[in-house]
């Protein structure tokens, strides 16, 4: 099934619709928020949903709906940042390991093996401890840990192509490596990388939410999905329903990315 056909699937359409909304909120979330996400009103603290505050208010009387909208951009951009870093550090070395000889292959495989042993969140916390508590630092760290995923996927996709007849024919005709990669390999590898990127973005969203939940990367009072979830959890006895909203938002976005990845995977969901 082609990628174009796959996106016509109901699950893919639904996922794309969700992601379109998330993308819109990431771009315009702060401007469409009905209230200033930082505006405090302690007299209205921990109020339930109402017409004015659809998701209620937090412990400082801030509008939770507005905070979630305003936090979308930070959360999504951070997730894309880490996936971008992973792509940059994973795809090209993955291809390089196939065409630049055994020494390069051996070194890259060992390096990837080493990086794969590192746990995501702990590594990100350590990096922010060393480089400073910023979301970019944390997401670069997460991106570095995504790189082995892209490396291996790219390498696996390209491995069969190195011995393909048309590639060998191109080599016999004197085509350069760059030309072979560009015209004969890249097009075959991209769909697999795209699927992986969609899945990785879902994972990155969870990683961003986890880190901001722990107070790493984004400093309060700046809103993020994970940050809103963390603050709501502190007042479970007053508003046991409140953490469900940011948690559901994270869950839906991640599920949409996974559903899309499933749909566009070669031979994927039918």
């Amino acid at each position, binding site marked *: 099934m082609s990628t174009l056909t796959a996106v016509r699937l109901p699950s893919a359409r639904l996922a794309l619709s969700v992601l379109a909304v998330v993308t819109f909120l990431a771009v315009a979330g702060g401007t469409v928020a009905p209230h200033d996400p930082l505006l*405090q009103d*302690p007299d209205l*603290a921990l109020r339930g949903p109402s017409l004015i505050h659809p998701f209620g208010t937090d412990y*400082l009387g801030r509008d939770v709906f507005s905070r979630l909208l305003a936090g979308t951009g930070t959360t999504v951009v951070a997730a894309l940042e880490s996936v971008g870093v992973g792509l940059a550090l994973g795809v090209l070395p993955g291809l390089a390991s196939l065409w630049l000889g055994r020494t390069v292959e051996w070194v890259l495989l060992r390096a990837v093996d080493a990086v794969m042993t590192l746990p995501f969140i702990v590594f990100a916390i350590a990096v922010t401890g060393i480089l400073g508590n910023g979301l970019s630092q944390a997401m670069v760290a997460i991106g570095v840990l995504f790189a082995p995923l892209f490396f291996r996927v790219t390498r696996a996709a390209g491995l069969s192509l190195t011995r393909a007849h048309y590639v060998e024919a191109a080599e016999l005709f004197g085509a350069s490596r760059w030309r072979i990669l560009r015209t004969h390999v890249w097009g075959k590898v991209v769909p697999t990388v795209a699927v992986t990127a969609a899945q990785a973005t879902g994972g990155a969203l969870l990683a961003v939410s986890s880190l901001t939940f722990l107070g790493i990367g984004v*400093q*309060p009072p700046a809103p993020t999905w994970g940050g809103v979830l963390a603050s709501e959890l502190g007042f479970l*006895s007053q508003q046991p329903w409140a953490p469900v909203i940011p948690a559901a938002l994270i869950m839906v976005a991640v599920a949409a990315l996974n559903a899309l990845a499933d749909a566009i995977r070669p031979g994927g969901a039918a």
Partner: protein
Amino acid sequence: MSSSLTRRSFLGLGAAAGTATLLAACGDGTVAGPGGTAGGTLKWGWSTVTSWDPVTSSAGWDVHLLSLVYAGLTKLDEKGNAVPALATGWKYDAAGTTLTFTLRPGLKFSDGTALDATAVKKSLERGRDFPKSLIAAQLANVKSVTAPDATTVVIGLAQADYQIPNLFAGKTGMIVSPAAFEADATALATKPVGAGPFTLTAYVQNAKATLTRNPDYWDAANIKLGGFEAYPLPEPATVVAALQSGQYDVAQIPGSQVEAAKAAGLPVQVIPSLVVAVLDVNIAKKPFDDPKVTEALRYAVDRAALLKTAQFGHGDVAYQPFPKGYAGYSNSLEGIYQHNPDKAKQLLAQSSYGTSPVEVVITTAKAEGVPEQLQSQLNAAGFKATIEVIPQAQATQLVYVQHSKALFVDQFAGRDSAVQAFQVLFGKEGLMNPGRQTPPELADALAKVSRTPLDDPSYPSVLQAATAVAVKSMPNVFLYSVPRILARRANVSAIPEFTAVQRFEGVTVS
């Protein structure tokens, strides 16, 4: 931390229940004869300590756990008055410069060595002279300690100071076994040897401290508990569930959980304490090197709003270091820096910064809550505030030792002696005076407090005058009092309500 009931604790509970049943059959359900047996282990969700050595402990509220394993010559009663402990009594000379304590006979440390006048002398001298001592400043006035006989300790003071009995009721006066610190002083950080109501038997740093009853404690007859387990402060969101499940018998809970605890059927005690939330302001650092900015800060803070959010209304707005009802509490200071953002703006306009927003960094160990609210309040009053989060483990070093932060969101745990509290908050060497400056008029007022006997009718007014001088001349911004809110399971008897150190005499677990 495991929330489940371990096999060992289950067996322990079973054994305790069996013992209680046997004792009940004999009469009183929880009996403890003098130095005899007792039953029940109390699991306390409270905090762990920075060190089990009172001389090197760096946190004010370590005193609560340390008082389980150490005893002093005196202790404080519920009202904060010094009463006999290891000493049966004390007497000042006419000049107030010599203080003679009489010890109880036959006292022992938990290592079995004798706790006599010589041991007291060595322990106090170590607190004063040990190079790494964090209580040395409080003992600087102690010129000499002599032990003319086994039960008499004579304290020679450089200047008259009637605060010593109160001072000795806290960390400063905890008596440590000389045999222990002469053998290996560093080991005391994890293996304390004192003569308190309990003995530490196991300790996992930042996780759990296990203590058993000390039958040789001078007041063992009033210690009904057979053991004690102390855990770090529980998570606010889960503390009520942890109490219900039996993970803790007693826990300190935040104001936000009071209603939830009551709804769960847990008895809740809101105990007035000496703890007060405060901003440590460094007047040696910009922008607070400008007095107008420091003054503006006092008016920029809406204490009532902070109290409502942070404590859910439990406690009082504070403009001074002492709570209402304490001898040093001055009525004249009530409302002195009432929230007035317009006045704060005016003061900032008169400062060297003019009308442009004054940049200030709020340093804290946790950004959520008060720091966020403070940032909003300061921004509304002409400041441009940002929040800087530092790890709790580094706060002591960065704020108290290096004095590298201009504004730190802090809590003052209170001290047993009013003068000691002044020294910590306002003294030139005070931990919470990062600017290291003390005006002469405050030093004079404090000297007068020290010279005034605590039973002198003029003592409250002298102390209140010193409080007024401190609040008006020092940059510390007091925010609100922090009562000790304890929730407990129904099988635990009421916890005695001490404003200073929490004590557990008479407490039972059935």
